[in-house]
């Protein structure tokens, strides 16, 4: 059974609304928000070992919201989210991490950052050798390690 099936509908609605508050869509950067359908589906699939903490975080958020974060008027969400960010502690940190891990591996987001949407292997990357003459002054130094008796 997937973790997504375990969250209640109310929790899913709150989580999706919160993800959109954390990372909203941006026309300027041409990126979706973290509440985008594909990205949010990835988030739900990825709660895994953080499921319990994420659920605790969502319960805290619901409490701060007086029942349901997603049911709040949009203008009220910012204030509640700010309080939640301040008080959320370790559980929120884990939830936030899942959101970021899924958001920044989305193809559209990666391309907007100039990144290739691919795993590191096998292509890897290019790192320039650099100017090895920078080491010349260090090579001129005499030994700096202590001789022992």
């Amino acid at each position, binding site marked *: 059974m997937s973790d997504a099936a375990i969250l209640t509908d109310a929790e899913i609605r709150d989580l999706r609304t919160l993800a959109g508050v954390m990372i909203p869509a941006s026309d300027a950067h041409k990126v979706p928000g973290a509440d985008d359908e594909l990205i949010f589906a990835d988030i739900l699939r990825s709660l895994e070992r953080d499921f319990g903490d994420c659920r605790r975080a969502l319960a805290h958020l619901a409490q701060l919201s007086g029942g349901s974060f997603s049911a709040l008027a949009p203008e009220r969400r910012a204030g509640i989210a700010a309080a939640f960010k301040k008080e959320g502690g370790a559980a929120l940190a884990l939830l936030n991490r899942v959101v970021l891990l899924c958001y920044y591996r989305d193809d559209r987001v990666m391309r907007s950052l100039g990144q290739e949407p691919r795993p590191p*292997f096998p292509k890897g990357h290019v790192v320039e050798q650099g100017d090895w003459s920078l080491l010349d002054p*260090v090579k001129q*130094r005499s030994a700096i390690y202590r001789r022992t008796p």
Partner: protein
Amino acid sequence: MNEKVDVLIIGSGASGAAVAWSLADTRMRILCLEQGDWVKSTDYPSHGRDWEARSFSDFATSPNRRRRPTDYPINDDASPIKVVNFNGVGGSTIMYTAHFPRLKPSDFKVRTLDGVADDWPIDYETLEPFFAENDRMMGVSGLAGDPAYPWHEPPMPPLPLGKSGQVFGKAMNKLGWHWWPSDSTIATVEYEGRGRCLNLGHCTPGCAQGAKASTDITYWPIALRKGVELRTHARVREITMGADGMATGVIYYDRDGREQVQEAELVVIACNGVGTPRLMLNSQSGKFPNGIANSTGLVGRNLMFHPYAQTYGYADRPLDGNHGPPLCLWSQEFYETDKARGFVRGYTYQFGRGIQSIAEAIQSTEVGRMPWGPDHHRVYRELLNRRIYLSAICEDLPEEHNRVTLDPVLKDGNGIPAPKVEYRIGENTQKMIQHALKNARTILETAGATNIGTQVPILNGGWHLLGTARMGSDPERSVVNGWGRCHDVKNLFIVDGSIWTTSGGVNPTSTIQALALYIADQIKTRVSDGTVFE
């Protein structure tokens, strides 16, 4: 009943693999028991789009987070530094940064030179040929001529400086401070069947290319060809004792959880600075009610971690980010004692060229640098690939209250009591950390970095597990002698970081392996001349 072997090695990591390879020359029957399994290179995270996420799941550095069936839990609640390790063929060499400095000559003479802790019963010169042999076997890249070390020649050229390395080099030159390309076990050219580094940029949780040396691809293939047997999913519960005061072998659990007895003439422990005292403390008998070879009560004491003091900042332009091995340079300007600093001993800076993209988002959000809401995107784009950092590896001095014991409640999957770690950073090291932070800020500012922050100590920074079965000439003040044999049990050897008398201020794998090769050489010599049990 398993057939008795001549040599039984417990643990297949950095030191166990080196000992197995070395002893294979003798044609003795050698068996290694490993609680983990082989890791296929195709399992490494760099193969998938979820490569960063897996650093927080099945390739997390903390066993408490990773929670593989082959891991054992560790209660480190009473420590500001959490233990990291890996359990599998290759041990924690599967999951290390491959930074490969050696201890220095002065590290073996701490009492003589600085009046603290104890001298080691061996010295740098004794280990020098074993350092060289290990460099060849592991495949080390680097540059000869470092004025911070006695002359040695790594077999491969150094890792590239890249953009970030040049920024650091220029800053260090302005300050007139030492820096040098790191010795690293990352292959920069094709080496002994290993491909050269492709700059995957995700070295710690296993190298998909096989450019990073881990003992499953260096020592083990040769040891196995020479006839050593390696039995995986074999978790040792205890070392058993005979009436003659010698170890008789071990009891272990196989992959099906069945109890197995394995007898041996000689037992070698290679389970790291937490796993080794845990096993010894779990090995209780009438002769050793407090754990095998523990007549002094020192088994588990004097745990040393190397507290890491990290300082980071942001350049005014994108640098290397996570492209390439993260650690490419070191500085040992502040390694040797200068009593005018207010502390003794010193530290190494390891320079980091950058961090992964999502790690930047996570870390910057956690410290409040990156906001939620519309401004999130702008701030992230200003941070991405601009972070550079220095981590000071600060020498820990041995203190008996820093220790590993057995947790009265926590157990692993086989019901074996888990280790409990109690540790606090000593006063000398605290002063060292402050010194390192101040100078790191100076370096970053000289490099033009801004927005400087620190992580002290790095929470999940317990990579280096040292000192918990210390080496010494005095049986009242140490657990093993100068060639790794337990004072109390004459056919029981320890070869991992547990036996370090002091910690130095460098990543320890190079010295752990050199020391293991030295001990193996001593065993071979003494088996040959009949003095090994005298």
